[in-house]
């Protein structure tokens, strides 16, 4: 159940396009916050620049809207100054992987105690659909008009390799699972990274034969493979379908974390 009193009702409806998945991710995050029972004046939402980073503007708590890609650096500062605060970072794929890539791997290495929710919509949505590091090969965007030729970044695997304590990936179709994953990440001390693949019907789907919102969500749902099933398919030598990605909890461990209040 979403906490309705955490929304700024005077700002709604938000500016996201019709069918944008970012609103769903805000719902799931607020449901996880409600489950955790956090107080409103002890929670802070940090974001960078982008569509996804407008999310804290619709939530009635303290928030920081920072420079492009530097949300994790600011969030580290908040956590160091006030270790009693609960820090949640909303970020997009262009914000986190392209411009803030270095901040991301070092926040994972330091294992700062916060929750990072990455809304990965495959492109830079706000500026007109340019290709980002997570644009899948062959996808058409405004800077890759003949199809992206570069391999895409797998952000969850990057977080696992860099040393985050909790890493999960879900899509905006899997609302219940995503809520549970965000809540589990909030409970884990250390950096919890939850990648949520969302639909961007306006700038991604429109150019990639996924014109309607349900078509784009159905594409996400049908290409998601559970981690267990993926491992079983690899062990049995079954070919992995093209464009498929794993969903589920990728890692949960207890490396020494920074900024945990004792």
């Amino acid at each position, binding site marked *: *159940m*979403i906490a*309705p009193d955490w*929304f700024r009702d005077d700002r*709604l*409806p*938000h500016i*996201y*396009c*019709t*069918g*944008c*998945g*970012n*609103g*769903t991710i805000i*719902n*799931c995050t607020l*449901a996880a916050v409600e489950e955790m029972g956090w107080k409103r004046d002890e929670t802070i939402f940090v974001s960078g620049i982008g569509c996804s980073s407008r999310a804290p503007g619709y939530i009635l708590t303290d928030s920081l809207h920072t420079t492009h890609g530097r949300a994790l650096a600011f969030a580290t500062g908040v956590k160091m100054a006030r270790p009693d605060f609960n820090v949640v970072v909303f970020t997009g794929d262009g914000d986190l992987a392209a411009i803030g890539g270095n901040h991301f791997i070092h926040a994972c290495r330091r294992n700062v105690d916060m929750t990072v929710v990455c809304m990965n919509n495959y492109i830079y949505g706000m500026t007109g659909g340019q290709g980002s590091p997570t644009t899948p090969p062959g996808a058409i965007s405004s800077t890759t008009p003949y199809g992206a030729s570069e391999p895409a970044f797998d952000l969850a695997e990057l977080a696992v390799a860099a040393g985050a304590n909790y890493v999960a990936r879900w899509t*905006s*179709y899997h*609302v*219940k699972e995503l*809520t549970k994953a965000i809540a589990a990440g909030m409970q884990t001390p250390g950096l919890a990274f939850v990648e949520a693949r969302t639909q961007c*019907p306006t700038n991604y789907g429109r150019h990639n034969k996924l014109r*309607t*919102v*349900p078509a784009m*969500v*159905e594409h996400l749902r049908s290409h998601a493979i559970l981690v267990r099933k993926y491992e079983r398919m690899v062990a049995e030598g079954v070919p992995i379908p093209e464009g498929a990605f794993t969903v589920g909890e990728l890692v949960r461990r207890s490396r020494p974390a920074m900024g945990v209040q004792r």
Partner: protein
Amino acid sequence: MKLVIDESRCKGCNLCVLVCPYKIFQEGTELNSRGIVTPVLDRPERCTNCRLQALYGRMLCGVCHMICPDQAISWVEERPFEPHKVEVEF
């Protein structure tokens, strides 16, 4: 409890049509005053949450409420003796 769509927030993305297991949400056909085709409710009293939320004391299903990107779907308490549309099946 009664299922309602907030017409001032809905942008007509039809994600609720995709996820509802009872097919309560149907794609609309008429533009509303904001120029948006909002979904229409087909016999909303079939919704699990409408019928059983008070009995169980918690949210049941609720996927449309969670997936709605515009926070437009919610449940409100019914006033006593609210008129219902009754369909008689022979």
